[in-house]
């Protein structure tokens, strides 16, 4: 990882001159700030960085980064970014999306991006609500959620974004949260190192329409009970090390370390294990603490690399046909 003092530009230079227009107190501010502080140290030149977003509150993000950027249309950022990477593979591309943008209107593009494994990073700001349109339930809102468009409670079963990403064979899957800057920066740095599509779900508080949705994961008093910080090669511990998770076959169980269990009995986090990653992604109800960190990573050739390899191979075996030969084709005749 690049040392901070090797930063190619400053955090201030990473910010554009545009006035940031999220609601005061919105979790987006924290994510923007961490991005602006992390990105100069990634060893990438500012001109080689591109942010591509769709539509929604989070999708205003590119306007605030002093890099290349595109605020595209609702749900389509993964496809725009894929096209960009195919023709300009050296760029560092960051897709900024939200739960509505990425999982509802753009759900199709997201899963296809993940299976193709284009080398870019997807930051999905999950606030479990439609903010920009003023508060309708989203595909990650809990069932029964009462909003203006669901006065009697939402009937939609919510998506589990990480399980969805793993189901689409994503090669890098992580979760972090707006209120933990250190963790957020760490995940951003790690995702940048991954070659392939990095999928990062960021819990983001919408303090206007869905305030406190993730309070139990950020509130100092509650979070110890409710979160597990995943660390490579370390046991799954929570509640200040008093509790842990062990695997009984494929069944996870919460165990109390004060009741005769030791760290040796616990599930050791291995982000290369797809089965375990899937089990972790199902820690999605109140029975288990919510995991944060890198759930899964895998080395798989990325799409644009393979595309370029095919092109090089074709050039090698067929030679680069000259335009005249191409226009002439295989069968031509002369009239004289």
């Amino acid at each position: 990882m690049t040392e901070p003092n090797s930063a190619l530009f400053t955090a201030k230079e990473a910010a554009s001159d545009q006035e940031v227009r999220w609601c005061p107190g919105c979790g987006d501010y924290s994510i923007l700030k961490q991005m602006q502080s992390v990105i100069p140290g990634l060893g990438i030149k500012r001109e080689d960085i591109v942010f591509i977003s769709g539509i929604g509150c989070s999708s205003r993000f590119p306007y605030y980064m002093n890099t290349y950027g595109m605020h595209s249309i609702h749900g389509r950022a993964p496809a725009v970014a894929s096209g960009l990477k195919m023709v300009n593979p050296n760029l560092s591309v960051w897709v900024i999306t939200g739960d509505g943008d990425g999982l509802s209107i753009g759900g199709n593009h997201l899963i296809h991006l993940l299976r193709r494994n284009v080398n870019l990073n997807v930051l999905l700001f999950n606030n479990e609500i439609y903010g920009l349109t003023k508060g309708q339930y989203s595909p990650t809102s809990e069932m029964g959620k009462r909003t203006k468009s669901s006065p009697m409670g939402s009937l939609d079963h919510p998506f589990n974004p990480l399980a969805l990403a793993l189901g689409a064979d994503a090669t890098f899957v992580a979760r972090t949260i707006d209120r933990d800057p250190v963790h957020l920066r760490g995940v951003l740095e790690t995702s940048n190192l991954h070659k392939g599509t990095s999928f990062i779900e960021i819990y983001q508080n919408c303090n206007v329409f869905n305030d406190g949705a993730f309070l139990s994961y950020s509130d100092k008093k509650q979070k110890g009970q409710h979160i597990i910080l995943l660390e490579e090669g370390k046991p799954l511990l929570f509640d200040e090390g008093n509790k842990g998770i062990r695997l009984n076959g494929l069944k996870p169980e919460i165990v109390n370390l004060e009741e005769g269990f030791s760290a040796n009995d616990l599930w050791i986090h291995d982000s290369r294990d797809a089965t375990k990653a899937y089990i972790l992604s199902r820690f999605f109800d109140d029975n288990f603490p919510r995991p944060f960190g890198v759930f899964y990573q895998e080395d798989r050739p990325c799409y644009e690399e393979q595309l370029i390899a095919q092109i090089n191979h074709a050039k090698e075996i067929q030679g680069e046909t000259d335009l005249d030969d191409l226009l002439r084709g295989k069968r031509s005749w002369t009239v004289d």
Partner: protein
Amino acid sequence: MNTQSLSKVTIHFAGDSGDGIQLAGSQFTNTTALAGNDLSTFPDFPAEIRAPIGTVAGVSGFQINFGSEKIHTPGGRPDVLVAMNAAAFKKNFPNLKSGGIIVLDSAGFDKKNLRLAAYDESSTPIEDIPKEYQVYAVDITKLNREALKDLSLGSRDKDRSRNMFALGFIYFLYSRSLQTTLSFLEAKFKSKPEVLEANLRALNAGYNYGDTIEAISRFKVAPAQMEKGEYRNITGNQATALGLIAAAAKSGLELFYGSYPITPASDILHELAAHKNRGVKTFQAEDEIAAVTSAIGASFGGALAVTGTSGPGMALKTEGIGLAFMLEIPMVIVNVQRGGPSTGLPTKTEQSDLLQALYGRNGEAPIPVIAANSPADCFSSAFEAARIALEHMTPVILLTDGYIANSSEPWKFPQASSLASINPPIVKNDAHYLPYKRDEREVRSWAIPGTPGLEHRLGGLEKELETGNVSYEADNHQAMVKVRDRKVRLIAKDYPVQKLIQGPSSGPLLVLGWGNTLGAIQVAVEHALEQGLAVAQLHLKYINPLPEDLGAILSAYEKILIPELNYGQLVRIIRDQYLVEAEVLDKIKGQPFLAEEILEKIKSLVEND
């Protein structure tokens, strides 16, 4: 046996979709092209991939019109019908010219085939053919099996070469050499010696059969007076693909083609995917929306970005095209039109997406629209669409259609060095770069990610003049709408002068066409002129913006007739823009115009006057 000289012949090959009709047709085409005739072809595919064998719905057709004179269309009513079964005969006999030649496989008229073709089992369609037709009822199946009897192939495999028998017979009838097809077969079946042997024998057997039967007249069609030069045969979709490749080469850009499979546009994707050795990047996207938006990403990234589709796909791309317009990035959108609305008639042709191309977006979003008018013209139209897109920083819609996409004609291909270079306004450094600052043509410059110092953000929100920063300011929006409109209108400044194709420069009637109607109108107006009617012909390639000199041309005629394969679309534009008396001749049958249909209309209009 006498040999008659003809100046023009139209042959229609027809059979079940498993009978190898397209292959026989394309072989006849290649041979005919090499013999020096001008020609035009039109395949007629069944609507279903595998309609029930032997039924009329399952008939596949291939028509070729060739001659020693200039050929403008695949021909109206054929002179010759080759029918491999009863269904093919039933479907196509009504179109055959009175007194025409019929070559049929009599084995395809047994009870079963009659039933499948929905004939009464006791009917005798062959015997019922009126006397004036010249009928070759040949038991091709039996003769072919006989010729292959010592081969170890099963009889089904042997029957697969019936198409070559029929083709051989037609080659004999039209005094053609077998050489082109022999070499083709040798290359195609190199790894299957038995199949190769079967096909070679079938072809020769068909030819020899013609030689052995008595009292047959043969025909000769002398080479056409073609312009000197080197030719190849090409379909519209191939020509579109090559035009895009050439434009990429001439602009020094990489070609990116994002597309989702759809009839009848998929062949462009197939053709481009075969040219990876020229660095062409094709992307089969997850849907039409990803196809267009991946092209937007590729354009942002500095490529010649293209997406191709047909009508229903255009509908899905609408929002993406609007974004490309708003961003003012170059992109070509190819719509190979088919019968609509909705899923419509996927394998049939129509020109009914013109208004969609012109108006099918939210907001004020004028986009240049250009239309190709023949298979070979798809090359120059695609090249021109790319030139306008790149030099004027705008998405451009190229309209072709199923008819010209699948038809073929000889193409006097250009030398690469004769193609003009394309100069996109790429900016490499500018200390005061403003992404939406414009030149005198209202064109902004193109800063490609990776270029130091030109970092900028763009998006679908309204932008401030010059800076491109988000702006909701009222006067700015009005100014931006106008400047984007003006930019598109200024494109017409580069157009060549509009020239009449034929006829007087003023008079009672001008026939105005666009797209695939060119050939049929040309033949119709030629005949009208021969008959002493004062009719002129003009054909539009540029539909938005319209040519600046069009108004003056139109105003010199009392009436404008616009034949269109739709219910009247260009006619609305012409009336709206020029307030002239314009009338449509519509045809919405999934088939191209016949010259006679247009001629008849011309006569009714000019004689009424």
